[in-house]
């Protein structure tokens, strides 16, 4: 299997590539992103391409002619780039990479990254949606994820290619760039004054495993991928030893401004998560993707606040020199 990994430079993309490298049935791996991979890769080919550079991206993908695409290049606003840039890069990457892969003529399957944001959190929406709940996104990132799913599904239908969408909970970890994680790590954190809605998290490695399983198991359709259990803003803030500051109504506008000044911009989908929560029923992914051991949300949350201690090492050979 020849696999193209878009967004290979990100934490998830790099881990997906490492896991694919360990599988015998994957013969060749190629990937691209606007930044280099986070870890060492052994047999994958990486090319640094801005997703908006249509000619280079199309040329690279056409030359590789993949059998399968892991479309990780869906950029969350304020994770590694601003909202507009993330939307433009995601759309360009989806249209150009998937279109070129389909036209190359060997494509059999596509797996795209999506998010639980596609369900929206409007009034009357299900509290814990499964994959067949109505798709009514209420934030720009939710609409972006839904656009990606629709574009990929359209390509899949036109070229008779199987298509899987992984609707991931917030992917978090001590090394993953995430606006929610950055916000929760502030010394004082605004939380809802009169509610404590639940939200789910997903470990970076589990997100990568879901991609690999979806590719090798050749699955079709959408899958909610969420860490078991949930956390809530008040509980998370206390767990991290931060100071909770209750906010309500117009107070959230101030909260968003303050957080932005403090270096943790809060995009609308993160604000919605804090105020209304975001969870989903992930049972289908557990059975169909063979992921019974996903890391629980509380464990991912603990990891978010863990920092490695700096150990002072004595310079080697000091005694010899002396």
């Amino acid at each position, binding site marked *: 299997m020849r696999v193209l990994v878009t967004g290979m430079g990100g934490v998830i993309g790099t881990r997906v590539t490492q896991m694919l490298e360990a599988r015998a049935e994957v013969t060749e791996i190629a990937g691209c992103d606007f930044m280099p991979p986070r870890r060492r890769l052994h047999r994958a080919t990486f090319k640094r391409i801005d997703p908006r550079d249509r000619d280079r991206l199309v040329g690279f993908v056409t030359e590789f002619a993949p059998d399968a695409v892991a479309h990780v290049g869906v950029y969350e606003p304020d994770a590694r780039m601003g909202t507009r840039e993330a939307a433009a890069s995601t759309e360009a990457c989806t249209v150009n990479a998937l279109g070129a892969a389909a036209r190359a003529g060997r494509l059999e399957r596509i797996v795209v990254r999506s998010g639980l944001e596609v369900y929206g959190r409007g009034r*009357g929406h*299900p*509290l*814990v*949606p*499964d994959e067949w*709940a109505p798709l009514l996104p209420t934030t720009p990132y939710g609409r972006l994820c839904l656009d990606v799913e629709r574009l990929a599904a359209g390509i899949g239908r036109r070229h008779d290619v199987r298509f899987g969408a992984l609707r991931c909970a917030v992917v978090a970890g001590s090394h993953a760039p995430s606006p929610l994680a950055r916000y929760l790590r502030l010394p004082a954190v605004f939380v809802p004054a*009169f*509610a*404590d*809605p*639940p939200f*789910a998290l997903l470990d970076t490695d589990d997100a990568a495993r879901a991609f690999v399983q979806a590719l090798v198991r050749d699955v079709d359709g959408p899958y909610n991928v969420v860490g*078991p*259990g*949930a*956390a*809530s803003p*008040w*509980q*998370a*803030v*206390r*767990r*991290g030893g931060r100071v909770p500051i209750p906010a309500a109504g117009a107070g959230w506008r101030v909260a968003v401004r303050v957080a932005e000044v403090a270096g943790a911009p809060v995009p609308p989908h993160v604000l919605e998560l804090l105020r209304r*929560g975001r*969870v989903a*029923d992930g*049972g289908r992914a557990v059975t169909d993707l063979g992921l019974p051991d996903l890391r*629980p*949300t*509380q*464990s991912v949350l*603990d990891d978010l606040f863990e920092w490695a201690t700096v150990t002072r090492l004595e310079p080697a050979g000091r005694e010899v020199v002396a």
Partner: protein
Amino acid sequence: MTAANYGLDTDRASTADPLLVALRRRAAGRYAVDEFGGDPHLMDLVAPLFPLPVAVEHGERVPDLGPALLIANRGLGLLEPLAVTRAVRRAAGRRTRVVGAPELPIVGDALRTLGTIGYRPDDVAAMLRAGHLAAAPLGPTWFRGGAGAPPRELFVATLGFPVLPVAVRPGFPQNLPGRPWRVRFGEPLGPPPGTRSGDQLAAAELAEDVGEAVTALLADDA
């Protein structure tokens, strides 16, 4: 239960921590939250504050493990779900998630923290898939007297999970002298074997069966 839930089981009721330990635990954020917004630690803490005397009949019919939908008659609306919750806690040592809480700001959020959810059939189905016990009224709310009408749309969404009819008879609240509340559990009911999920006719028949079972339990109790 996982180690990451700080020793708390989201399904099985446990003894409340001493006040100081509980406060420390909450200050450190060492408590679990479930996908439905329920806070099991808080549920255990507040349970002793509602000492409703309850007499349980056929408590052995409540499953020790796994999901079940408990369908009870309606009444004044506030104490019936509490009586069912206490009866299940006593019979099987499990928490009950009460269906049909008002979806209002602040009040709804507070009730959800104590283990309730609204009346969306999709959410009740998700709760059962998660392995919880859910207690729903014979109707969209717990209010009004009489057995109530069978909630057919709820049975369509939850078809395949065991259903327990429950009869709740009022007693004297808050330990005043007199009769305790009586909660009687009926035999588990389900659709015929081989029924496909979402089968409207099977759900309608099951709804009728459950409605009749609750009425019969109430008549036996009278």
